[in-house]
């Protein structure tokens, strides 16, 4: 049942020009960054050979591609997610889902899975760029796997936050702005808050701040470290925002 709703959301995404525009611009931006870095790498390659234990192409070219993906997702996810619930409420089509024999959890999970499937497609297409390097070289597959997992988890975090924003209002554009504001706030606060609190000897607030800063949790992945603490923080963030969304929609039914 979750996949029925997910399939409907995917179909709706591809029926709107927005998804195609977002995919196009992401590819242009990422391809530009990728080629630029590849060009730089080719130029400094002779010097790298002289360094003992030099950084490889995966570290110098591929990792920055995923860092750019993370930033582009920060802008793209609020736009892709804005209509998920807000538009259904504006067009009063939510009634179809709520009248059907489904729990609110299934509805929210279905919408989340639908959006996530689209974002994984984005990550998949992005991954084709590093894989093209196999034509003329070798890659560090460990680091590549870590980057893919990290960016997929990050996308899931963004999706959960943006889905919650979408259930707060019946105006898709307002939803996008709320999502963007939440994500940007998390980025700015998370950058400094977790380390600052930990430095003062407050481990619990520090852990909470860490949960709320998905980009900070992405950092270990970018270095090729599968940090279970970061994974747990990201999963916790996803669960928190999905539950908030479910509760919010239940409250709409109760309060009208």
């Amino acid at each position: 049942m979750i996949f029925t709703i997910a399939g409907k959301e995917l179909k709706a995404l591809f029926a709107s020009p927005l998804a195609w525009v977002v995919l196009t611009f992401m590819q242009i931006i990422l391809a530009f960054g990728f080629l630029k870095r590849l060009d730089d790498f080719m130029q400094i390659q002779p010097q790298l050979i002289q360094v003992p234990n030099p950084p490889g192409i995966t570290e110098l070219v591929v990792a920055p591609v995923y860092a750019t993906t993370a930033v582009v997702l920060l802008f793209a996810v609020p736009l892709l997610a804005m209509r998920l619930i807000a538009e259904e409420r504006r067009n009063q089509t939510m009634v179809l889902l709520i009248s059907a024999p489904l729990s609110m959890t299934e509805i929210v999970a279905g919408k989340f899975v639908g959006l996530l499937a689209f974002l994984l497609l984005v990550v998949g297409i992005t991954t084709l760029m590093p894989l093209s390097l196999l034509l003329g070289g070798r890659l560090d597959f460990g680091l590549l796997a870590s980057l893919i997992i990290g960016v997929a988890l990050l996308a899931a975090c963004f999706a959960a936050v943006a889905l919650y924003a979408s259930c707060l209002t019946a105006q898709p554009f307002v939803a996008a702005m709320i999502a963007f504001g939440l994500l940007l706030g998390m980025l700015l606060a998370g950058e400094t808050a977790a380390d600052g609190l930990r430095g003062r000897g407050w481990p619990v607030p520090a852990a909470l701040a860490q949960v709320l800063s998905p980009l900070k949790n992405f950092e270990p992945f970018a270095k090729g470290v599968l940090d279970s603490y970061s994974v747990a923080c990201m999963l916790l963030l996803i669960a928190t925002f999905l539950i908030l969304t479910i509760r919010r929609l239940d409250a709409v039914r109760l309060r009208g």
Partner: protein
Amino acid sequence: MTDQSTEITVSAQGLSRKFGGHTAVSGVNLELKRGEILGFLGPNGAGKTTTMQMLTGNLAASSGAISICGIDLFERPTAAKARIGYLPEHPPLYRELTVREYVDLAARLHRVAKSARSAAINDALARCGLSDVAQKLIGTLSKGYQQRVGIAQAVVHQPDVVILDEPTIGLDPNQIREIRTLISELGANYSVILSTHILPEVESVCDRVQILHHGSTVFSDTIAGLKQFHGGRMVLVGLKRPPAASDIATISGVARVEPAGGNLFRVSFTDNADPTENLVRRAVEKSWGLYQLSPAQSSLEDVFVQLTRKEETSP
């Protein structure tokens, strides 16, 4: 099959709903048997839509109980919802889907088994006269067809109860007739609750009528009972040489006399009195030329206006 006709499909007791301090619906009872069509009437803002939203689980009730085919809607919402088909006032259509895709989605959401799905979709499309436009995008269809898509969505899973909120609003007279025929057909198999403002529609389609006003039931009876609403207490009198209306009103037991056009008068009685005999005697004595005397059948419109106006004047 015999006990199917008496099987109660919808039962709601003491249904109330408050929005903040405002009470939208209070203490509404509702009962529907299989194969019955219930007309749900009331002025705008009477609480019809709110009641329907509660019956379909779209809105939680402040108090009261609802059971669908014996399943409590609040305790087992998914099992109860599986037996309901709902067309809200604003049909929940996805304009970017084709008619067939949309009805297919509705069937999946209502957990129609995969093996039966294709047949169920074809059946719903044929029944609602949509087979020819099955491959068209919903956004390109006319309002009448969109309304039919909304009904197809509500019946594709063959629910026991179909709830239609103003299904004929905004349609042209031909489309209204088609939808009305469709609703009569639905009534043969399902229980139908139909809310509407078009009173002749109710008289022609429904078995029973329930009128809401200010959130509570002011009338609930069968169509036959409705026609007798004044039956015992009002007669239509035709006089060839009519006196002044006030002369007729002097007969004991007559409450009110209204001219009903031409030489006809509508004479209503006070409670517990039947002055028909006195009326006839007086007419003969004064040679008013009595040529017609019939119990006045009240139309739904009379009852509706009377019940929903009367209460407005009283606090």
